[in-house]
């Protein structure tokens, strides 16, 4: 067994961990990063291979080695989920993500208060644990700004210091300055969506994405190759942690990355301090790192699992779990799709960044009046590609329109005609937190290292959620018709209750140690030198927007607090 000593150990070097590695390293702290997967180079992403990266999910966890199981309720047996969307490499999910980069709206941070103000308390489902965040938009704005500029996000402002700007998202919270890069080029699906959405009175705009539309920070601009979501970028135009923050962390001389390292325990002593971590290295070596500060920043399953696996006599329910809220309030975006095809014109949506290309925010969050609708909160409505990827294998997963079979000559002719003439719209719906949506340890399934798999108990099919999905899917059909599409049809929404995309929660942040796991900096109430960072800390989903930029802004805020305050008084709560 090898033992190393360092100032800081970071478990999981992805969207959040990569930012912390760079910021803490720059401040002179010695940092070791542990990453279970490999570290790729941009040149590794040359093969544009839909089978390997989209279909077989080569950049995502291998579910045979790293299973996560799911059951709809406590009475059902859990089975291994077929796939997950998080990453499995240095840079994490930012290597293969669609790069959507959103700020939450101002009122999303006080969702409980605002919902009660507008609709009364009875509008909130009684079994939901909807809460305000312990952080405000105003506090986070400088860090959103920093993330956009340091990483490189392309978009157009819709609200510059309170001035609404046509062509940007007029619903967005006020921003201090423009995006660092102009919006990406639009493809034909975006052109059609823009016209259709305007026709029904909505406010479409090019989705802000962490893909550089022009050369930036010595990286070349996007080539619009289309091999984007599910793929690594072959020119490094995607502003992943791999090509932005990791080189920066390397340059500090204070950062060491250990790949192939599976952390299996956070070590603690009887005073409530954590002392470091233990991990299996390549070849299954057993290793320990002693560190003054432990930052745990993998995807949400491993955050909760690691806390549970690290239980001791003093902390029999797991670390950071004195509140009993560890592993609870799990959330995910449910995706409702609508497809549109044309007879006479091509769309060629295999071109350009493939995910959620053009968006409306009109039916998201509380941007519309929910009175009498039977649900609260909304969805991001966008157009792009089926399953966020533009190749023909992804398109073969599209359920054909009613009356067309899924196979045979009629299907072949449908597919041959529709492939280059279709657009795929998706409503990415915010789901509310519920305390009985949980992660715990599966008693039956183990991973390749012999550890119990994380087990998710989750069923999105609640009245509030069903009503929302139905409402926004109808809106997408309206837009499809307004686009002039002769063929517009909705896909059946997932009949089972399994979580959709962007899983969040499990170590929720709050302002009271009695009902939350961490404070707004991700610092655990129970162990002040242990931080949990990432979307596991989100107390609500915020919106139907993708979470990554908010994860990154929070990571910058945590790094700032650690460097400028925690370090002066280590071991104290911030």
């Amino acid at each position, binding site marked *: 067994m090898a033992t190393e000593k360092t100032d800081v150990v970071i478990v999981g070097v992805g969207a959040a961990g990569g930012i912390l590695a760079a910021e803490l390293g720059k401040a002179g702290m010695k940092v070791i990063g542990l990453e279970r997967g490999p570290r790729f180079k941009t040149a590794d992403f040359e093969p544009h291979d839909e*089978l390997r990266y989209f279909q077989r999910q080569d950049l995502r966890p291998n579910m045979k080695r790293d299973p996560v199981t799911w059951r709809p309720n406590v009475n059902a047996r859990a089975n291994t989920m077929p796939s997950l969307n998080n990453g499995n490499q240095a840079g994490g999910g930012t290597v293969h993500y669609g790069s959507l980069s959103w700020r939450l709206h101002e009122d999303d941070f006080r969702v409980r208060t605002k919902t009660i103000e507008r609709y009364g308390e009875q509008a909130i489902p009684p079994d939901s644990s909807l809460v305000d965040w312990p952080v405000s938009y105003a506090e986070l704005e400088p860090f959103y700004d920093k993330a956009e500029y340091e990483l490189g996000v392309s978009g157009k402002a819709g609200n510059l210091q309170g001035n609404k700007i046509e062509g940007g998202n007029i619903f967005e919270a006020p921003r201090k300055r423009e995006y660092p890069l102009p919006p990406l080029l639009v493809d034909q699906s975006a052109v059609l969506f823009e016209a259709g959405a305007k026709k029904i009175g909505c406010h479409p705009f090019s989705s802000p994405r962490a893909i550089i539309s022009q050369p930036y920070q010595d990286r070349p601009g996007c*080539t619009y190759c289309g091999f984007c979501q599910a793929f690594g970028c072959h020119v490094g135009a995607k502003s992943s942690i791999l090509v932005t923050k990791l080189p920066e962390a390397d340059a500090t001389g204070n950062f060491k990355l250990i790949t192939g390292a599976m952390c299996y325990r956070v070590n603690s002593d009887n005073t409530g301090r954590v002392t470091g971590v233990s991990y299996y290295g390549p070849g299954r070596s057993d290793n320990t790192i002693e560190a003054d500060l432990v930052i745990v920043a993998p995807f949400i399953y491993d955050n909760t699992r690691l806390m549970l696996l690290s239980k001791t006599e003093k902390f029999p329910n797991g670390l950071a779990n004195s509140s009993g809220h560890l592993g609870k309030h799990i959330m995910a975006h449910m995706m409702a799709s609508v497809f549109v095809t044309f007879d006479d014109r091509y769309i060629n949506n295999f071109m350009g960044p493939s995910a959620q290309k053009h968006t409306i925010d009109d039916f998201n969050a509380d941007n519309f009046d929910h009175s009498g609708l039977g649900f609260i909160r909304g969805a991001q409505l966008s157009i792009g590609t089926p399953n966020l990827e533009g190749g023909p294998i992804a398109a073969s997963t599209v359920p054909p329109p009613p009356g067309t079979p899924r196979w045979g000559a009629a299907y072949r002719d449908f597919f*041959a005609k529709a492939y*280059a003439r279709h657009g795929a719209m998706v409503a990415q719906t915010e789901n509310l937190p519920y305390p009985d949506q949980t992660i715990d340890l599966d008693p039956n399934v183990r991973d390749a290292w012999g550890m119990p798999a994380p087990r998710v108990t989750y069923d999105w099919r609640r009245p509030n959620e069903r009503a929302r999905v139905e409402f926004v899917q109808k809106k997408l059909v309206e837009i499809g018709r307004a686009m002039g599409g002769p063929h517009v049809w909705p896909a059946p929404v997932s009949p089972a209750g399994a979580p959709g995309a962007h899983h969040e929660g499990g170590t929720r942040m709050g302002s009271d140690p009695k009902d939350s796991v961490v404070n707004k900096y991700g610092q655990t109430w129970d162990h002040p030198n242990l931080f949990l960072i990432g979307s596991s800390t989100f107390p609500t989903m915020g919106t139907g927007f993708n979470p990554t930029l908010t994860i990154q802004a929070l990571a910058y805020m945590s790094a700032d607090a650690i460097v400028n305050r925690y370090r002066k008084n280590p071991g104290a709560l911030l």
Partner: protein
Amino acid sequence: MTKHDESRRAFLVGGAIGAGAAASAALVPEAFAKSHKHDAAMDAPAANHGADHAMSGMSGGHGAFFNDDDSRTITAFTERLMPGAPGKPGATDAGVLNYIDLALSGAYEDQQDFYRRGVAQLDAHCSQTYGKPFRSLTAAQQDETIAVIEQGKAPAFAWPTAQAFFDTVRTHTMEGMFADPIYGGNTNFAGWRLVGFPGAQMQFTQEDMQSKRAFTREPIIGLQSRAKRKEG
């Protein structure tokens, strides 16, 4: 990988490079023209049609996993899922059998038993219903059988269930049609030509993005032809 696979793969790759460099037909389904034995009449035995292809070299090879009978069954089944017609390449033209055969001996090794039992149950169902295995049925009977299986109405199936078997073979058929030829299917970019996909392009221009017309610029790009070009 066995030596046999290596040589077969090399052969496939040769085909892919040729297609990428030499094809001059516009990349639209209508323009895809190729001599193709027309789909068997719906009332004629379908098996020989598939078997001809299956046994005749790269357009539908097997040998890594399937035995001869099972290869005929899978050839027939996948061809009914994506039937070929003049100007419209189907599963046999695209080498879907070869794709699945290689996948089951490699990346999908853990699904060997799924296929073994699935094919056995399929034949049990067909024997009960028609007195013959699937591969010996007429195309119309094969279609009838697939429809029943898709709806899960074939009691001969236990594990895998009929629907699971249908879904998996359909998924693998689509993979064999549309994955890069490096994996043994999509022969001469048959699948990509059918739908108008230009392959592993490295960039599109603003003009490309603004076009409302079919994208027809040649060549279609496959992974090994691209790697070869870079070396050369």
